[in-house]
């Protein structure tokens, strides 16, 4: 069976989830050289509403382009966390923005206050997605940090490179801290009832 890794980035419209999906896909596909497909789905509203972006990674050509059972779910608000946590594999990784997600459905979620960090450290709420991207990269190990940084810098508006690089690094650091705080591996070794 070919290697396949399914990621879903979810939240509300305007949180920049499609953008970080594109950045992640570009880092993995172009800079790391793996096979990748990025898809998105959103409502007809210009702002608000649900938004999600999916990235599928493989070592061979990818047929079905949407995420199947999730290896990683990023939930940037409570609704997306509630809607999608059931799609996670038993050992799948749940990462939430604890600024908005207060009800955690699984015992093994990484809770990092991405939006709060963006507000307090950078005074710019809009970098919350890049902080989350840094954390996701660190926690999944699905992309090399160097590729990701290159990809971020090539996709963000001119003049915001330093801000975004710092945000990415803040995310990586926050993930390191969260990882040290508890090890989700222990929990994931429970009986797999699915099979």
């Amino acid at each position: 069976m070919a290697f396949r890794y399914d990621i879903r980035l979810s939240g509300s419209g305007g949180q920049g989830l499609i953008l970080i999906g594109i950045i992640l896909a570009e880092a993995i596909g172009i800079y790391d050289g793996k096979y990748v497909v990025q898809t998105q789905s959103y409502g007809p509203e210009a702002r608000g509403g649900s938004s999600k972006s999916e990235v599928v990674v493989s070592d061979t050509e990818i047929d079905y382009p949407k995420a199947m059972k999730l290896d990683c779910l990023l939930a940037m608000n409570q609704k997306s966390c509630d809607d999608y946590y059931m799609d996670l594999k038993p050992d799948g990784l749940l990462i939430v923005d604890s600024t908005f997600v207060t009800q955690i459905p699984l015992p093994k979620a990484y809770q990092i206050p991405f939006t709060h960090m963006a507000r307090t450290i950078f005074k710019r709420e809009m970098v919350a997605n890049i902080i989350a991207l840094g954390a996701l990269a660190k926690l999944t190990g699905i992309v090399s940090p160097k590729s990701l940084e290159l990809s971020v810098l090539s996709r963000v508006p001119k003049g915001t490179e330093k801000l975004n690089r710092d945000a990415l690094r803040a995310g990586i650091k926050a993930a390191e801290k969260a990882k040290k705080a508890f090890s989700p591996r222990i929990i994931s070794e429970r009986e797999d009832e699915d099979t």
Partner: protein
Amino acid sequence: MKKKKRKELLLQGNEAIVEGALKAGCRFFAGYPITPATEISEILSVKLPKVDGTFIQMEDEIASLGAVIGASLTGTKSMTATSGPGFSLMQENLGFAIITEIPCVIVDAMRGGPSTGLPTSPSQSDVMQARWGTHGDHPIIVLCPSTVSECFTLTIKAFNFSERFRNPVILLVDEVVAHMREKIAIPDDEEIEVFNRVKPTVPPEWYIPYQDTPRGVPPMADFGEGYRYHVTGLTHDIRGFPTSRPDEIDPFIRRLFRKISQNFGEMQIGEFFMTDDADISIVAYGCVARSAKRAVIDARERGIKVGLLKLNTIWPFMRTAVEKLVAKSKIVIVPEMNMGQISREVKRVIKSDVKVFTINKVDSTIITPEEIWARIKEVS
């Protein structure tokens, strides 16, 4: 053979369509933005002026195709892009382009319908609109990509076919493929085959604009270059003037069909995947072909011999490919995101006692490999 390393890009289906159009020589775009085709307009509005091309945002889709037809008549390769609701408005001018034999490419990124429907959700429900949306008996070429790379290659093919056969070509994309991003390597110009319309070699006073040729395609003069001729939506004689003589009407309509039908072979683009020994075959197109491929692999791992025929050419319908398929498979499954538009065609062309099953999903989401697998189990 030496192969140069090509630069890889992460592109959206719509972006790849733009790249393909520019490589094919498209230098005019007129359109009206609509999800999920808007990116094509957006990007061309930036890129066309840089290659001395023209971009116009029109007041609506009727005018968009009108402008495209006018531009093409002057010798400029032209296109427009829209979705179902806009495509409905284009049907009148589509017929005009067919009867006047003016090459053009129309992208229809399919979303849920009817009417305004579901702007941001995928669908495959314009298959028959693409075939029969405009009135009158007419031939049409419709191509359908299922990967980002195919968005690029089939757009070039669409332009080539439209130029060769002097007929509009429709690129039928679904929202998933239009918005999906994948890696793509853009080939160098010398590796890309581009066909330009045949122009008259006779002096203007000898030019007969709609005269039959062995290919059925008359040479086309650029309007405004001294070749004066009449262009009308009325059924016309070989000089382009309206006629009501049955002995002129009949050969004209038959020539329109013949120029496509005598070249059926080269328009049949598709892919057989593990069909040689397949007991069950799937016929799929667009994004659903990707789910079907996955279902084939999964079924094979479970010991069931399933194969896939992926259709890249929707119209003219790939009759010979389907016939080849049912020489071995006695069961055919047609999954599609409509109530059964291609499955009707599959049933129409199969003359033997092969069973045709359908999967019709109309809930605005893509058919999953599991749903196809469930159907395989049901019918095997």
